[in-house]
């Protein structure tokens, strides 16, 4: 069940298969002071190998949408398919790794032990666990830190360890909710570069929530702009930037052009209320 997904062919086919599709998605939270419409009529298709960023003001439903995909929240109406099946079936098939805003490492486990945690739960053999821990630690440039405890690492290193943990099992979808939100700009730049490198190496589909326009433009193949009350998608921008992206690309006219469009989209959403 876990090994068959590795053998996916490289993105040589012109039309990549759809990994996530949402149709007419609505989600209403029933709260003590009345219902809150967190998602309204959301339609979205995400193809295999896409790097999709979700950007929008606070409370526009970015986290909610990610949680719906991850089967942590049940939509009020509409359908979501992940890998062609319901989010629940996808979750049970361990189709995705979820990176939360806080690293959420267990303080009583070493870095290696934290990364091993999902592997233990999923029943990988000891040898396989050890091999995978080494591999993903290398991937996030934390080799040699497996015996350290979380409190011995900086915030950025902890966040990298939590990404490694989501990569350790062969989920080909990575859902990331503001993973770098709490980090300073320099660390963030570095992690963005690493994430891009990792993405092009692993062919994963990544859904990435952010508040930062440059971050969204730098990372994504598609940018989904959302607006609040009720949360909905106002624009989906295809990025013309090449897959190979040095940090300097952020000064190129194309980059600034897209960033401008994202900003316009955000402003239009705001004019609504």
């Amino acid at each position, binding site marked *: 069940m876990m090994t068959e997904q590795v053998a996916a062919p490289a993105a040589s086919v012109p039309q990549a298969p759809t990994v996530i599709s949402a149709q007419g998605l609505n989600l209403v939270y029933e709260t003590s002071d009345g219902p809150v419409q967190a998602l309204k009529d959301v339609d979205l298709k995400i193809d295999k190998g896409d790097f999709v960023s979700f950007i929008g003001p606070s409370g526009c439903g970015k986290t909610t949408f990610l949680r719906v995909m991850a089967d942590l929240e049940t939509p009020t109406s509409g359908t979501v398919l992940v890998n062609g099946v319901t989010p629940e079936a996808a979750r049970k098939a361990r189709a995705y790794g979820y990176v*939360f805003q806080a690293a959420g490492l267990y303080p009583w486990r070493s870095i290696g032990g934290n990364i091993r945690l999902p592997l233990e739960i999923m029943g990988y053999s000891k040898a396989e666990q050890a091999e995978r821990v080494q591999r993903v630690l290398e991937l996030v440039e934390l080799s040699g830190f497996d015996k350290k405890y979380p409190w011995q690492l900086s915030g950025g290193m902890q966040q990298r360890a939590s990404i490694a943990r989501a990569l350790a099992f062969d989920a080909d979808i990575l859902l990331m909710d503001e993973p770098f939100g709490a980090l300073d700009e320099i660390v963030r730049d570095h992690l963005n570069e690493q994430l891009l490198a990792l993405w092009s190496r692993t062919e994963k589909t990544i859904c990435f929530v952010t508040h930062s326009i440059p971050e969204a433009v730098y990372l994504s193949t598609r940018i989904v702009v959302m607006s609040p009350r009720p949360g909905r998608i106002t624009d989906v921008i295809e990025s013309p930037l090449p897959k190979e992206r040095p940090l300097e690309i952020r000064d190129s006219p194309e980059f600034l052009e897209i960033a401008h469009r994202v900003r316009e989209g955000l402003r239009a959403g705001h004019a609504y209320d």
Partner: protein
Amino acid sequence: MKNVIPVLTVVLAILLLWYGGAILLNKQWVLDQAARQDRVLTTPELIAETWAQDKPKLPAPHQVAVELWDTVAMKKPTSKRSLVYHAWVTMSATVLGFGLGTLLGFALAVGIVYNRVMDKSVMPWVIASQTIPILAIAPMIIVVLNAIGISGLLPKAMISMYLSFFPVVVGMVKGLRSPDAMQLDQMRTWSATRAQEFRRLRLPASMPYLFASMKIAMAASLVGAIVGELPTGAVAGLGARLLAGSYYGQTIQIWSALLMAAALAAALVGLIGLIQRITLKRMGMA
């Protein structure tokens, strides 16, 4: 050295207060005694006599120390006159009751955290159980258990258990619920089973709470064991020593039994503290 001076200061202050208190409380009896014998006492004589009575209201520290030395060091530990023997009897009931109470408290906490019905129904009863004065039910427990042929260690251990399960339930419910929503969501994204969630998340997260409540439980358990020795006219145990001491006005014996109980409590709680340090260190949490 820095630590020793404050500690010594406090000990000295306690001793001074204690000796002073002994003079005040025992003075009247000495004066009455002297009046009866037509003796006139100088102040030093008066003070010396207040510190040397057979059955003082408040024995002086050195009298208790001598009694402790006689009953701890100078008697064979197996002798009924040895305080070590009595402490051992009480400790057996304390430790057994503590073990049973911790198990019961742990089981109830797991039930409360994982079972909706238990969550709604058990806690009020647990709290109600602790509002009943232990002195009121201890004799009943002993009598009932005696009636069905159970006597000796177990009835006392039951009373200890009754007192010690409570802090464990309260602490463990809090501890097992200490993982936050994100950690639980994370487990869900990995499709972890309830058992995996318990073993890998809730249980390790609850360890600091477990040890804190076990320390309270141990102290409560000791109180329970001593109380359990009172109503039966037990012949052995620190409770029996306290009771016998108060029958015959042997205040020195009472005080040495009390000090022994305090030392026992300190040792047992200290032992848990030690296990806590080792465990949390091995878990990387200390």
